[in-house]
């Protein structure tokens, strides 16, 4: 007699009961994190409101931060700007703006539209950053799992919900929330668990590396601090065009400055020439990144030993996604938590 779905589910439940580990949750951290987040949100909204008032006379169109980052006034320097009149037109190159130290807060509307922080960093009006990747994972999983091959297409944005399609199957597509959270960072001595404003992060590699190290958390991530720094930079680089070119270059520089990293010109597995960095982690695994030196976009990331890789076959702004990203496709109740 064949097993029904319900019968098989019961078998799975018993199996889960037998193997589920105890999860130690640091509950003492929850309330302080919540209070910190509430203060941050209130501060960010206050700064945004102040910026709105201060910049009204200069052109309020830049204030909400939904356009390219170079057009957005730095949130944390609003107080400085209040005492300095707008610069008169001059032939001299403007002084680079001081990096803000107080990040703006993102506001995610019911339709998933994001305001309050800089928007997508690419030029042009295209709403999505399109990426096509080809990935290979270890095939030898104790006889249990898969061929380990996957093609993934994504249409992502910092300003609106996006879409991910695996192996070209629109029927299995998943929507994703706006890619507005940049991670947990310490900026000017203050931890921001869900930083959304890239302007507060350095664009110089050495300074960015120091900021990353200052933002590491002892009980988060695996390996040595160098391993964790590598993982932060690798993750950012894998997000491609969602970061501006200056930040991409800085994250690359962070990896290049790690102890023992080898740098050379080389080719990825598809024969494309690029700049190559090779980092050996504390477990002896060699991670290799290959990028297009002109755009700073990754061509490939790979690991020694298991032969896994992700190859970036195509990356560009895109005018539309093949399906509208909806909450139903995302499996989320609201975009703000998706």
């Amino acid at each position, binding site marked *: *007699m064949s*097993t029904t*779905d319900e019968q*098989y*589910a019961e*078998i*799975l*439940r*018993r*199996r*889960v*009961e037998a*193997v*589920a*580990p*105890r*999860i*130690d*949750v*640091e*509950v003492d*951290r*929850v*309330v302080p*994190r*919540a209070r910190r*987040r*509430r203060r941050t949100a209130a501060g960010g909204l206050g700064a945004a409101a102040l910026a709105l008032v201060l910049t009204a006379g200069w052109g309020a169109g830049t204030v909400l931060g939904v356009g390219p980052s170079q057009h957005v006034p730095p949130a944390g320097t609003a107080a400085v700007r209040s005492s300095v009149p707008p610069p008169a037109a001059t032939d001299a190159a403007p002084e680079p703006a001081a990096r803000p130290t107080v990040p703006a807060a993102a506001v995610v509307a019911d339709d998933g539209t994001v305001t309050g922080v800089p928007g997508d960093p690419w030029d042009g009006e295209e709403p999505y950053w399109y990426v096509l990747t080809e*990935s290979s*994972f*270890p095939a*030898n*999983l*104790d006889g*249990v*799992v*898969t061929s380990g091959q996957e093609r993934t297409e994504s249409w992502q944005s910092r300003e609106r919900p996006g879409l*991910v399609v695996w192996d070209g199957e629109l029927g*299995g597509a998943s*929507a*994703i*929330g706006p*890619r507005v959270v940049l991670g947990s960072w310490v900026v000017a001595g203050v931890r921001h*668990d869900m930083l959304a404003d890239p302007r507060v992060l350095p664009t110089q590699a050495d300074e960015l590396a120091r900021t990353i190290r200052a933002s590491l958390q002892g*009980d*988060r991530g695996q390996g040595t601090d160098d391993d964790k720094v590598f993982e932060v930079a690798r993750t950012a680089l894998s997000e491609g065009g969602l970061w501006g070119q200056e930040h991409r270059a800085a994250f690359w520089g962070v990896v290049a400055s790690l102890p023992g990293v080898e740098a050379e010109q080389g080719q990825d597995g598809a024969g494309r020439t690029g700049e190559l960095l090779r980092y050996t982690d504390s*477990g002896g695994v060699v991670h290799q990144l290959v990028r297009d030196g002109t755009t700073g976009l990754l061509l490939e990331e790979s*690991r020694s030993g*298991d032969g*896994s890789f992700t190859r970036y076959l195509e990356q560009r702004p895109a005018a539309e996604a093949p399906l509208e990203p909806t*909450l*139903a*496709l*995302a*499996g*989320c*109740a*609201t975009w703000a*938590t*998706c």
Partner: protein
Amino acid sequence: MPVGEAPGPAEALATVMPPGRGRDEEFAAFMAAAVPSLGRTAWLLCGDTHQADELVQQALVRTYLAWDRAREGEPLAYARRVLANQRVSTWRRRRREVLLAPPQLPDRGVADGQDVHADRDQLVRALALLTPRQRRVVVLRHLEGLSEKEVAADLGVSVGTVKSTASRALRQLRDAMNDHDDAAPATGAQAGGLR
């Protein structure tokens, strides 16, 4: 202080708030009651104990921020909904990590304690192969025992979507774990047959 008692069924954790407590004291009592269930759900969704800790903390942070609203209804359901709705990209990133064979995977035919680790690893890998939506549905519907209607409400999808997604996800889990009716019974560290 870490909290993490042996996990139990979600529905057994009806959290009723004693009246007259301060907000933080009340929330602390809620966390103590809810963490085992939330921890297990998080682990099933991401397959990593450290990541599960972080996901539960994030869900509890959001629940605390909305406590006035959450406590009016069923706060555990609220927290679980927040937990299950966290970013898809997190799961996808985890998937890559999960699929990499961990060095501590025990060999075949080892002692019982290691069998548990191997079975656990096999389950995590099988779950990792599902799409984020499939994993959410099958975890909430079949592994945490919520009704189809509850899952639909939690995830903002129709009951029909829950049914079809859960059915397909179970089929994929059977394939991944070689849990077919005609499969030879598996034993030891590689146990994948019906037991």
